[in-house]
């Protein structure tokens, strides 16, 4: 059975989505369990897949039994093997963690919600696992469509934000499709590795260059790199919390993965990193993204909005690290895809827990949260430290690789930007800690008695806390096992040509 893992990862959730939808009409409570089982299976099979990859480098699966270029082939190697596991784990944990708040927010929409949820996961995992450029587009659209819908059901101006997201997303995806078209003209194939084998003969042709530019533009829009980030903050701020803690960790990270995949596996490094000038200019773009993202985050007054600007800065980390075009930098980028996904999940889950207990997530509503919900805030502290980049949390080590990459490439602007954003993050998160910790002001140290802590204790239900704790612990575990991760997996994901 294990040779079908690549199919299972995608197909099981897909079929499950249909079942969930049907179950939604029959009995609502079934939906969650079907989804849980499906995601558990795909998590399991992605683990199995990673193990297979560790054994024999790459696993290929031909759909319909046709070998490429005719048919569609899935091709799993070190790079997407690890990303698969991470995204599957995130989807599963988030599903468990948000059960309660889904029941709270979408009482009579549970069926459609879980169907969309699972479809989104299908799309995302498909993007990661597929080896076919066009198939990637289709899956991308599945993920986006479901994402639009999930975000659209949020609060306040969600619908409007979601519609803007639709516009931007469509432009991005279409650009990508266009680029693929030109690649098809040039090579006559849609299979990534087939293309890669044909391209080197025609690197000079402008068609390839144009395809390169167009693809990259589309991906930048999709991953909300700084100038094209406008859709992200609103969409993430207004979206319902159970959805956002799924979408925020996966969407942008997976798009960064796609960029890395396209540039390393389709346009081989010898083409992508051909001219140093281009690389550095992209790094500078990332630097701007980091700085602007951090500064904008400073000016926000609500938790989720602030976090989404932090994420824009984080995107800058990954893109910049990749375009440093040296081993340390790319290692940092890939490592940061994993770590950042985990950190984002952690903090957004906390935001979800807070919203479960507190009317809003604007800073005024966070007062006294350390007394009210100490465990959630404890997890939040871990996540925050990881985003700031304090050892031994995982955020520190990816930042370590990124900065060493920056130094190695002699790109001190990038190094400075990373340090700057770390400092800004300190300010950002300690502002929240202060609000949660000091306010409301009162001379507790005169009157305060010790049983006061228990009095106002009202943390999120256990079902939401336990997964959150697992994620928070995972941040530290990831940090401690960084070296294993790098030496066992990531270093093989980078083609040999890069020093």
């Amino acid at each position, binding site marked *: 059975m294990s040779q079908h893992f690549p199919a299972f990862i995608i197909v099981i959730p897909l079929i499950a989505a249909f079942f969930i939808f049907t179950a939604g009409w029959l009995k609502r409570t079934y939906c969650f369990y079907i989804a849980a089982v499906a995601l558990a299976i795909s998590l399991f099979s992605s683990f199995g897949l990673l193990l297979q990859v560790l054994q024999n480098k790459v696993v290929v699966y031909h759909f319909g039994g046709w070998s490429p270029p005719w048919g569609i082939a899935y091709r799993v190697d070190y790079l997407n093997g690890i990303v698969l596991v991470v995204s599957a784990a995130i989807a599963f944990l988030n599903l468990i963690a948000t059960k309660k708040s889904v029941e709270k927010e979408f009482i009579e929409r549970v069926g459609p919600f879980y169907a969309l949820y699972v479809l989104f996961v299908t799309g995302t995992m498909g993007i990661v696992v597929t080896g076919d450029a066009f198939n990637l587009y289709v899956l991308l659209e599945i993920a986006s469509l479901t994402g639009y819908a999930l975000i659209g059901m949020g609060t306040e101006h969600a619908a409007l934000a979601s519609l803007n997201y639709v516009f931007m997303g469509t432009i991005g995806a279409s650009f990508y499709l266009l680029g693929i078209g030109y690649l098809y003209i040039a090579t006559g194939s849609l299979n990534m590795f087939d293309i890669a084998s044909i391209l080197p003969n025609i690197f000079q042709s402008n068609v390839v260059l144009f395809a390169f530019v167009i693809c990259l533009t589309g991906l930048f829009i999709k991953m909300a790199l700084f100038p094209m980030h406008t859709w992200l903050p609103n969409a993430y701020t207004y979206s319902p919390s159970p959805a956002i803690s799924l979408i925020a960790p996966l969407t942008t990270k997976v798009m960064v993965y796609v960029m890395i995949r396209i540039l390393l596996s389709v346009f081989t490094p010898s083409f992508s990193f051909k001219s140093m000038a281009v690389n550095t200019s992209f790094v500078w773009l990332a630097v701007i993204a980091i700085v602007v993202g951090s500064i904008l985050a400073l000016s926000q007054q609500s938790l989720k909005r602030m976090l989404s600007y932090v994420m824009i800065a984080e995107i800058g980390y990954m893109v910049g690290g990749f375009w440093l075009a040296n081993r340390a930098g790319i290692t940092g980028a890939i490592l940061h895809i994993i770590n950042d996904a985990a950190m984002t999940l952690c903090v957004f889950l906390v935001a979800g827990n807070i919203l479960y207990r507190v009317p809003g997530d604007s800073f005024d509503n966070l007062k006294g949260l350390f007394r009210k919900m100490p465990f959630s805030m404890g997890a939040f502290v871990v996540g925050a*430290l990881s985003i*700031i*980049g*304090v*050892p*031994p949390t995982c955020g520190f*080590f990816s930042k*370590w690789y990124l*900065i*060493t990459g920056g*130094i*190695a490439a002699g790109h001190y602007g990038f*190094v400075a930007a990373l*340090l700057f954003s*770390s*400092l800004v993050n*300190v300010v950002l998160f*300690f502002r929240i800690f*202060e609000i949660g*910790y*000091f306010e409301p*002001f*009162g*001379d*507790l*140290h*005169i*009157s*305060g*008695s*010790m049983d*006061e*802590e228990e009095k106002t204790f009202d943390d999120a239900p256990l079902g939401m806390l336990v997964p959150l704790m697992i994620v928070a612990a995972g941040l530290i575990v990831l*940090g*401690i*096992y*960084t*070296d*294993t991760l*790098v*030496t066992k997996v990531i270093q093989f994901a980078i083609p040999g040509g890069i020093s």
Partner: protein
Amino acid sequence: METIVSIRPFLAVLVSILAVPLIVSTRRTNFREGWTFFAAFAKFSIIASMTPVILDGVEIEYTIAQVLPSVAIKLKVDAFGMLFALVSSFLWIVTSAYSIGYMRRLKEHSQTRYFCYFALSLSATIGVAFSANLLTLYLFYEMLSFATYPLVTHHQDMEGRSSGRKYLLFIVGSSIGLVLPAMLFIYHMTGTLEFAQQGFIAGIVPPKLIWILVLLFVFGFAKAAVMPFHSWLPAAMVAPTPVSALLHAVAVVKVGVFCILRVLTGVFGTQLLFSSQMDTVVLYLASFTIIAASLVALSQDSLKSRLAYSTIGQLSYIILSAALLSPKGMIGGMMHIAMHAFGKITLFFCAGAIFVATGTKNISQMVGIGKRMPVTLSCFFIGSLSVIGIPPGGGFISKWYLILGTLEADQRFMLFILLSSSLLNAAYFLPIIYKAFFCTPEESLFENKIDEAPPWCLVPLTITAICSIFLFFYPEPFFSLAKIVSVGIFSGQ
């Protein structure tokens, strides 16, 4: 120098972290503080159990996790670390006794949290003391910064918040902004971060950069409060007195100087410092801090902030001792870590006791207080003797060796600095005591009946006072430890 692998250092770090859940889970206050004591004693006994091994010139090391190629989170116990660990873990026991008295008497809120973070910061301190490479050092340094934040801002009022902000701004800002890039740069150049007896970057890093790196480290470890990175320390005095006593007279600030000494000796190495003339730069930075801090201390009326400024000055003694690059000076510096710790913690305890008993913080309102609290004030006297460096205060020994070091290194100017600062110390301590005891009844602010602080406060401060006298007569094991260190460092020359 042979090394043995043993988990004991890790246990020493871990024990107080493990105590945290116990402290949280127990509702009964007596049990909670029982756990604190238990952890403190366990920590001290583990560390003490390693002392003889270290005295035999053996080093103990333990690798926790391999996190980066060629860099691990790794503990390594040598004489220097052992000296520091002994001091701080012993003083933790005393302080926990003291803080029980202090907190209960003042009915402080959320004492559970207080004890938890105290335990955390202690493990961080020991971690710093035992860290075998720069990464581990940085890890525990940051852990200490974040663990002490809730203690500094314990009162959760406006003042607490503003000083907490200042605290973070200086400590975390400098460590991320200055230390981290310097560390990464060294890693990039050399590919390793392991401390070595004679440093490991000599010959690899171009001399121009040595300057920058040294300055980055000296200022980056802002816990050492080298001017102009000092102003967080007076601000941090809003914390409850036990915190100021242990953390801001012993643990945190000493961690700062410890880090600087570690990096100067273990990363740069004495020869490199000497050849690049960085030693003089550091010397003048330190001496400036010494004099300036002492002068500022004169003008402080609040007792705690006067003590804080005196601490700033005393810390720079230690940095100066490292920069002297002379064996005796190094011994003096090491000794000063211990001696000043005992002396200064006594003084802080006394300040706390006075506050507990009478509620006064300001020196101007302590006229004639000696008649009311004779024990406390006499201990205060002993402590100040030790800090000034007059026999039978233990501080005399460390200062003696420092002065020998200046002569050895032929730094007359530094000699002058040391002596004059000692005079200044005397100038800002002795008047307090004089006013406290010898004043005419009519100008005395307190009626003439003995009313001391509660015994939980009184006993610890007498213990520390006695210790600081005891150390004058019998400075072991610190002295031999310090000897081992300086021999190890200067054996190359």
